[in-house]
């Protein structure tokens, strides 16, 4: 295995020692570029009280390339498709090496708080969201209850 860049070690240490509230990220023991992530649904959003599992992978070129992030928990969200892929500019074209794991995860949490149905990834969800926002939010809440419920 290629040696882990200092930057990744640093970020990992910081994530563990000084975690972001509502977000955890633990590196996989076999592959320190692979993180298991949980994000709490932001308060006031339909995802409130849900805990969502994600996976995050730092490619070899990181930080020159964006980390790859994906939801593992099912979620009803116009910018997240059924494979868990996320439509977020900083993960694609607007990636900058000045960003880091921490900021990426915060952005994802923010995306949960403010879905953007006008730039959809999951078209059916987005349509639903535009036509009947309240109904869509209720459905999102249902899904959160069903799939992302807090485990004891």
């Amino acid at each position, binding site marked *: *295995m*290629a040696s882990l860049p200092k*930057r990744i070690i640093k970020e990992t*240490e910081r994530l563990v020692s000084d975690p972001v509230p509502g977000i955890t990220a633990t590196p996989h023991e076999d592959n320190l570029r692979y993180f298991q992530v949980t994000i709490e649904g932001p308060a006031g959003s339909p995802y409130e009280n849900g805990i969502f599992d994600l996976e995050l992978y730092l490619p*070899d070129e990181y930080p020159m390339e964006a980390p790859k992030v994906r939801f593992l928990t*099912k979620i009803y969200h116009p910018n997240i498709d059924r494979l868990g892929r996320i439509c977020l500019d900083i993960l694609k074209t607007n990636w900058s*090496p000045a960003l*880091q794991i921490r900021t990426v995860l915060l952005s994802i949490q923010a995306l949960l708080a403010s879905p953007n149905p006008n730039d959809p990834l999951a078209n059916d969800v987005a349509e639903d969201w535009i036509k009947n926002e309240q109904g869509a939010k209720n459905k999102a809440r249902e899904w959160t209850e069903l799939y992302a419920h807090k485990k004891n």
Partner: protein
Amino acid sequence: MDHLITDPTDFAKTKIPALEQWDTLLRCHICKDFLKVPVLTPCGHTFCSLCIRKYINNSAKCPLCLSELRDSMLRSEFLVNELVECYTNFRPSLLKHVQVDKLNQLEPEVIQESSLIEIDSEPDVEIKEQSLTNNDDIQIIGNSSEASKSKMTTVPKPNKIIKQNNLINKKKSKSTVEGMFNRKQEFRNSSSSSFSHQQMAQCPICQEFFPIRTLERSHLDECLSLQSLGRLPKTNNKITISKTKSNILPFSKKMSDSTSELSSSASKRDKSSSPFYLPTKNINYSSNLTSTSQHKEKVQEKEKISYVSRYVNSIANTDKSERLPKLDYSNLSMQQLRQKLNALNLPSSGSRQTLIERYNYYEMIWNSNFCDSLNPVDESDLRRQLASWEASNIPKSGNSNKNTIGNLIQRGDRGYQKLLTNFKNDKFDRKAWSQMYSKEFRKLINEAKLNYKKPSITNTKLSFNPHDAPMKEQSHTEIIKEAPPTHTNKSELNNNNIDNMDDNTNNNIDESKTDIEKLKTHTETDNNISTDEDFSKDLSQTLNNKF
């Protein structure tokens, strides 16, 4: 390898928390480390020369403000360069001084003791760092001054003091540091009861003298592991002692008793030259060792001035050596490309892609070295850098590939390599790939069918398991595993072009799952399950019926 992780948060709990910001400002936003050969962008941001050049190769914009940026726009920042170097030089002692806050109120004797401990405690975490020799130096003086202390027999009542320090230390330091501290404490207890030279023994590897206990318990292991890493054991103890002194002057004055002893013992060691001895930058100081502390102060003064004078005398190197131009590869034939590389004394073997990558990387380190750096290394050094980069970044034929697909299906044939390189470069040929592995895929599918067990009802996750799939590529193979053959041929395997994997495929997977489920259980539920949300509900129904 490099375990020295200094972080701005080191200052968070010190006397001057504002230093955390100061520390952050002197770091590059790309590598998050201290700026190395800093360059300024037209938009006013500063990065390491190499970091920003690497990034510009990918996309021509500033990482912080996203404004347009080309590498010809970069300008060296000599002042920042000196600021950072000066700062990193005194940072360890600064950190130490702002940390020992509470101890200042104790007796002077205690301060001496505690400062020793402070010094000792830090480098245990950082010991393996090679580039920042300062920290190593501190580690070393910690050890050797301790050794000299055991000879001095002037420590009257160490136990009590140590307890006190221990309390304070516990608050500040991590567990590893504590472990280190305890080790010292043990040693000190024993040494306070009976000091003698008999307790010292020579390490067979690095030829240094250590208390037997330290030697047995920890030092031998450390020394051996360093040796196995191909790094020299800390033989440069003798070289760096004087430098450390100059870094921590007030402290070294207090230690003046022991310094004389130190330097004499160091000079002895100098003569018994170790087999691992390697000349380093610090070698300048080694000759000064036997001289008095006056000389050490001189050294310090010299260092103090050097940053300023270096800054004042720095001249941009742009005219000295030519900047390597970017090449327009589309207009270059393979032969011309080879000629270009040959002209630079670079190897011209390999595929066109390899040659291009090689030139790009060399152009980058060349320009960073000759245009930005104040102390450029010569070309042979650059070629060495290039070689080590190639060794780790350009896959050689056959094995030793980091890519998971490589691990997944161990193959050495050329077609596979070619596909894999294309895979990385976004030109992945899906058809060729699925043809090449159609047998494997079919086998996997069959296996999956046979092994398919009912998924647990509580499984709220999508269809693949994160533990089996640390990388995306694997996740996709997982999907393929579960899909029936008809879908395999169509299904898209391309990671980079992930969006092609449309929802239909996904539905098909879910359907196929239920198909398999039916095969297995032979239940006659004729529900036509099509959507995800119904899937797990219906599944649980089916299972409930069964039991």
